[in-house]
């Protein structure tokens, strides 16, 4: 299969598609900022809203609807909306004197809806405080809003997330790189077992090449992850469980190359490093799949964070994410096959 080129072309085409679709497709219109952020109950307030990718002017103010939402029961509709530009908006609310809550304050989400952009939400947009608490008196005042026939954005877009923003596109690089790395290491494991059974030096060359490609992918995975972490969690490295496990995992495979350097004899080198490779893969499984699931993590799918899948990976993203996974994997195997061919030539002609 190494000499055939259809899968390399397929991999490159998928990656070209990933880069074009993954980087060019716009984000769904969203809300970046609302000011002032803290309000007082019983006042008539004016909120200045800053949108992202939005086209408020196109929609016109008669189609524009806005709400402040506490929970599904308590929603307040805006009294007036004033459009200043495509990305700027003024929303007016007459806040009732009492909040529908037993606390002296609460945080509310702002929801906008109009046909040009579809619905947009900013969670915890404003913080409202009240002087005296009486949920009973709040009663009907907070029932003015109803979400009815919310509009959909007409075009294809990626979801807008307040923390991720444009960095949501890293989903097509960071995550598939890990998948591809796992595949590379899995195949190197298979070739290690093959080597121990058959003693064919060719299998050993494949193991080294696959491990080298896997290491490159692992490093790229760490780098893309660190950049993403800087933008979303605030630091390149935040001692997150998965980050630590990854670092350990890369250390294990780095030790594999150290071990290879410790032997003069080719047969011994191949055999013992195959044994270590099998041992390393077995040790990697609890590192990557068991321990991170047991401890808290900032990553999605752990420590109470939602897994990437539900809301964050919608159908539009899947259209890019799955091809990206296949594309990166195929590219990884191509890299490994080139390394393998170089090593095979060296083995044959340079006697090393």
């Amino acid at each position, binding site marked *: 299969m190494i000499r055939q080129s259809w899968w390399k072309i397929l991999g490159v085409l998928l990656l070209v598609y990933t880069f074009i679709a993954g980087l060019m497709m716009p984000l769904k219109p969203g809300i970046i900022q609302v000011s002032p952020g803290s309000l007082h109950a019983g006042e008539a307030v004016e909120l200045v809203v800053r949108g992202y990718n939005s086209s408020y002017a196109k929609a016109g103010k008669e189609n524009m609807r806005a709400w402040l939402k506490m929970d599904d029961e308590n929603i307040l509709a805006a009294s007036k909306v004033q459009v200043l530009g495509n990305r700027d908006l003024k929303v007016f609310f007459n806040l009732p004197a009492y909040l529908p809550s037993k606390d002296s304050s609460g945080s509310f989400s702002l929801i906008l809806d109009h046909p040009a952009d579809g619905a947009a939400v900013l969670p915890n947009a404003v913080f409202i405080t009240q002087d005296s608490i009486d949920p009973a008196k709040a009663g009907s005042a907070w029932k003015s809003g109803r979400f009815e026939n919310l509009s959909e954005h007409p075009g294809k877009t990626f979801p807008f997330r307040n923390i991720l923003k444009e960095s949501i596109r890293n989903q097509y690089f960071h995550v598939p790189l890990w998948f591809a790395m796992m595949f590379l290491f899995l195949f190197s494991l298979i070739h290690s077992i093959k080597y121990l059974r058959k003693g064919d030096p060719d299998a050993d060359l494949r193991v080294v090449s696959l491990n080298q490609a896997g290491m490159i992918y692992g490093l790229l995975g760490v780098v893309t992850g660190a950049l993403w972490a800087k933008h979303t969690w605030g630091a390149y490295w935040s001692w997150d469980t998965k980050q630590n496990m990854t670092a350990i995992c890369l250390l294990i495979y780095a030790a594999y190359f*150290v071990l290879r350097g410790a032997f003069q004899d080719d047969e011994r080198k191949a*055999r*013992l490093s195959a044994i270590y490779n099998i041992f390393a893969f077995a040790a990697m499984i609890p590192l990557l799949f068991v321990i991170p699931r047991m401890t808290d993590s900032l990553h999605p799918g752990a420590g109470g964070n939602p897994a990437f899948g539900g809301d964050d990976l919608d159908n539009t993203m899947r259209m890019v994410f799955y091809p990206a996974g296949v594309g990166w994997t195929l590219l990884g195997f191509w890299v490994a096959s080139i390394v393998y061919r170089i090593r095979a030539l060296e083995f044959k002609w340079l006697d090393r």
Partner: protein
Amino acid sequence: MNFFAQVGILLRKELLLEWRNGYAISGILLYVLSTVFVVYVSFFQGVSPMVWNTLYWVMVLFATTNAVVKSFVQENGARQLYYYQLADPTAVLVAKILYNILLLFALSVLTWLAFGFITNNPVQHLEKFLLAIFLGSLGFSILFTFVSALSAKADNNAALLPVLSFPLVLPIIMTLVKISVSALGAIRDSSLGKDIGILIGIDLGLFALALVLFPFLWRD
């Protein structure tokens, strides 16, 4: 002679060798005592239970490296080959693992006594702590014995054992630290049973793998 009888005899051989040599075990003893003292002198302000726990496992880890590194090095290659002809090679490995479990358990208890005596003894639940020590010696012994067999084949093997085994031992260390922290009563750990399960799972997995892979390892 069946497998278990072979293991028994080989284990007896290891113990006898250690007993008659005397040198190795007293060396490790002294190593433990001096490490404990170095730590004590460096932390003259006293240590909190969490720090005690960390330091304890770091000391045990390094003592383990020193204790196990000689497993396959102390006897030369020709004599090793002689054993493999006399007995099942896997029995040789199992005997060494069993011997190292005993050695590491003694070493961990000793480190605990010495460190507890010099600083203070924060252990609240003795049975949990002994369980942690036992599971720790089990895992360390399996992993380090196997990797030392591997690194003994290399040309300069002194530095190879820590390089190869430390990354592999990290999952074991992490779960051990969690179990022993709850034995110190420093935090209440609700997932203790799960941690013990994971540790036993890792230990069993590594043991099975070591048994499967050793036949490929010893033959040159």
